[in-house]
């Protein structure tokens, strides 16, 4: 605002619109702070009067219950509520990351398919989007869970593949890799290979910019990333072995188990979120002016090159912001897992733990903080990507 355009004020400070704005904002802020303080102090007063224990010391107490999926070492009889918190947090993170990955891939494919000139593909994509977008996510989670459980046999009648991979209603059982001494060399080889590929990519781009020559980057990169660790694996004397799941008693022992709750949840979340991502992708592609495609076509570029080199890079600028929203939604929707017993943070921490300990305020606050942190981190990361993708003034 330009104060010089206003008539000169008669009596100074209070009539100055800028000062007024500041004063009102300070008053509003004070009011909000006061309200927050009033509610908080009221709450703690009431809690104290009722004789409810407060504080975070419960985190050091032994939890003493079993959890069906733990990514860290967890002992039913020895681990604390803090461990339970971490287990729940990691399980939420796991389902979110896998869900986001599959939702993105599926969403991109369906979104492109929606615009395909092939009638069948575009109609099928449309049907997919309209079906799954319009059914509540909770119903879909329950549906997939029931389908997964109903379709799979009991452990004794498992589907098996080469006697090392088993599928039954206790989950998908895979051989678990056992890393022995010397296996770190393979990891180092893998890291070196990836670093090498990064440099190679830079070099090939530079060469392409200068001379226009194409380098078979993808094929060479895959070869390097696969071959280097494999060669080192054999040189260092095969230090990775596998532990196979085997039927013992009425369940399988050993190996890695992917529980059906995780399968159902990933299924439901990716399929549901993919519909929204597909629509964002379609919107993004349609936002690219037709002239761009026609120009590329007139240069004789093939369809897939037009898509990847001309259309998508421009479309991404439109696509990314709504997709950020969908990623956030997916993370928050993962809390619906409580309906099927997947042990994520809401089920484990503000469910079981809350009931065993009874300290609702602390536990709910911690759970909310987890989701807030996840959401803010995702927003920041994708905002950064968005800024990188934005049109740069040259």
């Amino acid at each position, binding site marked *: 605002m330009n104060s010089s355009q206003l008539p000169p004020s008669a009596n100074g400070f209070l009539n100055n619109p800028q000062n007024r704005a500041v004063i009102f904002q300070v008053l509003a802020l004070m009011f909000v702070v006061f309200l927050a303080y009033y509610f908080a102090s009221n709450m703690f*007063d*009431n809690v104290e*009067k009722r004789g409810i224990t407060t504080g975070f010391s419960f985190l050091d107490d032994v939890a003493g*219950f079993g959890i069906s999926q733990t990514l860290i070492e967890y002992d039913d009889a020895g681990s604390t509520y803090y461990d339970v918190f971490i287990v729940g947090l990691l399980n939420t993170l796991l389902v979110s990351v896998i869900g986001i990955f599959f939702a993105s891939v599926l969403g991109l494919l369906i979104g492109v398919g929606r615009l395909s000139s092939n009638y069948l593909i575009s109609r099928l994509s449309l049907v997919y989007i309209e079906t799954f977008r319009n059914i509540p996510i909770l119903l879909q989670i329950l549906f997939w869970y029931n389908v997964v*459980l109903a379709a799979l046999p009991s452990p004794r009648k498992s589907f098996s593949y080469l006697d090392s991979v088993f599928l039954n209603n206790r989950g998908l059982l895979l051989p678990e890799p056992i890393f022995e001494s010397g296996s770190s060399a393979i990891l180092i080889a893998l890291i070196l290979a990836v670093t090498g590929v990064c440099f190679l990519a830079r070099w090939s781009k530079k060469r392409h910019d200068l001379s226009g020559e194409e380098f078979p980057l993808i094929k060479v990169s895959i070869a390097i990333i696969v071959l280097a660790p494999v060669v080192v694996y054999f040189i260092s004397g095969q230090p990775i072995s596998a532990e196979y799941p085997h039927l013992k008693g009425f369940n399988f022992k050993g190996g890695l188990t992917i529980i059906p709750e995780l399968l159902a949840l990933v299924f439901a979340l990716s399929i549901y979120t993919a519909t929204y991502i597909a629509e964002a992708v379609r919107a993004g592609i349609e936002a690219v002016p037709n002239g761009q495609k026609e120009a590329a076509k007139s240069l004789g570029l093939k369809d897939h090159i037009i898509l990847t080199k001309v259309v998508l890079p421009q479309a991404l600028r439109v696509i990314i912001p709504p997709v950020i929203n969908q990623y956030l939604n997916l993370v928050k929707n993962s809390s619906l897992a409580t309906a099927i017993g997947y*042990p994520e943070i809401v089920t484990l921490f503000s*469910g079981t733990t809350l009931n065993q300990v009874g300290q609702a305020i602390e536990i709910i606050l911690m*759970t909310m903080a987890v989701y807030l942190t996840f959401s803010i981190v995702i927003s920041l990361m994708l905002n950064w990507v968005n800024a990188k993708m934005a049109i740069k003034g040259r």
Partner: protein
Amino acid sequence: MKLTKIALMLGIASLLPNLASASTLDQVVKKGVLNCGVSTGIPGFSATDSKGVWKGIDVDFCQSVAAAVLGDPAKVKYIPLTAKERFTALQSGEIDLLARSSTWTATRDTSLGLNFAGVNYYDGQGFLVNKELGISSAKELDGATFCIQAGTTTELNLTDYFKANKMAYKAVTYDTSGQTIDGFKKGRCDAVTSDASQLYGLKLKMNKPNSVVVLPEIISKEPLGPVVRQGDDQWFNIVRWTMFATLEAEELGVSSANVDAQLKSQNPGIKRLLGTSGKAGENLGLSSDWAYNIIKKVGNYGEMFDRNVGKGSPLNIERGLNNLWNQGGLMYSMPIR
């Protein structure tokens, strides 16, 4: 979903200053209705029948308190709660009384700001397995997967039992007892573990009740009882003595059928119970016919047991520990005098 519900309760708790100051009795009388927290469906304890009417031994207890306080057992608003919501609902004042097969433990009694008013059912934790597994003892369950309800003492007992017997297990934890039995039906787990009384109810819910067996082992003590907020001694007394009145009535042979005739009884114990002598009702802050109302309109403990879980019900559970003290059980009323 659940999170917002709990958050909302907390929000309400923070909004209302000095909730504790108004006595629960006054509030209930003023509202004219008792808010009673029950389960989302445990047959025999609190579940709706085919007509949507709440039935069960815990439901009868809610009605007894309503009869004693308001003179009418129908003046109860049933609020179904999952295991993990129940204590928060009571703490926040959403309910006046929790009668939801809750196990009396030291932690719950001392750190949640709640008080257990007594025990209305002595239970223990057992196991339900498929017959086709060919198991006859819990000791053979090494490596089994269990379906459990979240936020229960069951979860903790299971760990203790398997640790003590050096066995391994996996737990799949569900929110409600309905989901738990559903998981078991679909084969997600080998066994369900819960309070033995609930297992009989769950067995009835199976498609083929005879395809499952309840194992003989009882691995824990589960004294189930009504819970009230800490710090309101008058309300605590009312709830506690409502329970004693139902026991005392059974012991004295007073039932809903003969209570009117018993009003003329010269037995001093019955006279004190029914308020024709003594001041038990007045001292509780209730009318003198408080116990008469309970017995006439709901019944004595034996009647409640029989029609909900005992021989008059599909569950057909033995009285066992829940028999009166002079008939080999643990049910014992403090003298009303």
